[in-house]
């Protein structure tokens, strides 16, 4: 298993290099550069040229790339030209916010999807299954940004049960219980909105896998041993069907990244997704590249986690 993990991590290296190259090239191809947005018509072109030279913007692309990567590896993504602060500092707090949002979303997703998937798969073609399946179809068909807006309007504005923006009530002392509660309260609505949509693919996946596993020969073997139905489900069907769900976990992470971009913007939740959209509209390129790179790394890590989980739970992979 160690061999597998090491090998799997080595595969990541070229993936990451390719990713960073792509992001860098795309950033280069965007019109203008870091200084474009700052140009004050009154500034002397000479000074700008000096500035460019100083920032290394006149170097050939591979030198710039090398600079950027070596900085990124050390946690230095340069300066944000809009916020006038290091990109790293800018992202730090937002990353923490996004992390909590994602975690709560994931937890809610699994809390909803596993029981629904199991019910739907075990009692397939009953009314319960049909209700759950209808929900998943609606979920598939509903765009997240519209659903999030509706949720925000209903529960945020109309009922006023949840705050409609920010990550914490201003003026609270960090570390206090109230502070934590307020943060939780702020991320709950975006997390629920995202989960309700994200959960449908897991429900469908689990349902189909259970229906599939139910018809396997070893289930007949289990029944012929005299195992009661509850045991057949818990010991034989679920264990085998949750396996692909575990493998799905990494892709769930990747999907979350896309989700946070919409949801954070709609709920004005100060996380990475919101920062990403903001910095695009403000042409804050060093921030755009840094966030894109981090999203990319998160996605690559997601699949790595999936593969490692799978290698732990599935003996057929573990041995090799």
């Amino acid at each position, binding site marked *: 298993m160690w*061999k597998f993990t*090491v*090998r799997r991590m*080595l595969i990541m290296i070229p993936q990451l290099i390719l990713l960073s190259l792509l992001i860098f090239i795309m950033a280069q191809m965007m019109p203008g550069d870091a200084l474009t947005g700052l140009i004050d018509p009154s500034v002397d072109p000479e000074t700008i040229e000096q500035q460019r030279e100083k920032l290394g913007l006149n170097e050939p692309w591979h030198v710039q790339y090398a600079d950027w990567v070596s900085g990124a590896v050390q946690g230095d993504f340069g300066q944000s030209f809009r916020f006038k602060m290091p990109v790293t500092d800018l992202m730090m707090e937002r990353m923490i916010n996004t992390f909590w949002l994602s975690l709560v979303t994931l937890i809610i997703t699994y809390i909803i999807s596993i029981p629904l998937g199991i019910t739907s798969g075990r009692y397939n073609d009953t009314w319960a299954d049909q209700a759950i399946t209808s929900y998943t179809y609606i979920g598939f068909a509903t765009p997240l940004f519209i659903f999030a807006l509706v949720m925000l309007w209903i529960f945020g504005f109309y009922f006023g049960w949840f705050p409609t923006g920010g990550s914490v009530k201003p003026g609270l002392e960090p570390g206090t219980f109230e502070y934590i509660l307020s943060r939780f309260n702020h991320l709950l609505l975006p997390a629920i909105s995202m989960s309700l949509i994200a959960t449908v693919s897991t429900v469908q996946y689990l349902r189909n896998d259970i229906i599939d596993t139910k018809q396997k020969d070893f289930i007949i073997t289990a029944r012929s041993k005299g195992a009661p139905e509850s045991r057949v489900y818990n010991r034989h069907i679920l264990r085998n069907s949750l396996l692909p769900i575990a493998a799905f976990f990494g892709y769930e992470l990747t999907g979350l990244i896309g989700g946070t971009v919409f949801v954070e913007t709609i709920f004005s939740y100060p996380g990475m997704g919101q920062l990403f959209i903001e910095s695009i509209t403000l042409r804050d390129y060093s921030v755009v590249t840094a966030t894109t790179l981090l999203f990319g790394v998160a996605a690559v890590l997601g699949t790595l986690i999936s593969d490692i989980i799978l290698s732990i739970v599935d003996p057929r992979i573990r041995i090799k």
Partner: protein
Amino acid sequence: MAFLEIKDLKVHFPIKGGIFGRTVDHIKAVDGVSLAVEKGMTYGLVGESGSGKTTTGRAVLGLNKVTDGKIIYNGRDITSLRGSKLDYRKDIQMIFQDPYSSLNPKKRVLDIVSEPLKNYEKLSRQEIKKRVQELLELVGLSPESIVKYPHQFSGGQRQRIGVARAIALKPKIIIADEPVSALDVSVQAQVLNFMQDIQSELDLTYIFISHDLGVIKHMCDHIGIMYRGRYVEEGTTEAIFNDPQHIYTKRLVAAIPDINPRNREKQLHFRQEVETEYEQSYNDYFDEDGLAFQLQTISDKHSVALPERS
């Protein structure tokens, strides 16, 4: 000169291992197999799963890359021909084991059977249709079947469709890989009879791959017995069944169920004897890796893999 000759055929598959996935070893699926088949004859390749019999058949068709050795068809070396020289391929066709999965369920019989025709011959649609109808009649299916789909046929009929496809280009050699293993006895009988019929009608040469010795005995003139990529014994059907020399062959022959219930005790006793001999004389028949030795000729009809006598 034999019609099809295989000389010291080797097919090795690499095993990837280690952190960088380099080739660390090879699976010697076929490891030095030689055989010769005369025109119009049936040659049986026998072995248990993993013995390399299917790989040998596929190598003849060019479906597996040959590591070493030669395949000579009609006096011509066809081992690694490429491009336009592949025309020999239409002379050698294959029938597959599973009549359920080897036919594309979404295609009509017309499309399935005409596929090789379209690949190798330039015919108009009318001509193709006519040829397919002729072929279907030849395999005993009604010409109207061309518009049907595979699921509308029984197992035996499906296997006939597979045969019709295989004989569409008037091949000289057919490699039949377990053609009846997935079929019920009565359907199996149908397909076997029919294969014999078209053999004499079209002067076909068969390589018949099977693990079922009953079927092999019924169909074949010559038999080669394979174990872990090598031959353990080779000879005429009579020689193999009436006078098996290698302990591996003896075990195989002893394992054939006897259809006379009165012979039960005798059969049991016989098997125990063979098993004892197998255990006692294992080292006389297999080298230190558990593989068979080189074949030694013991008569003009019979060779056995035994260590060289000093």
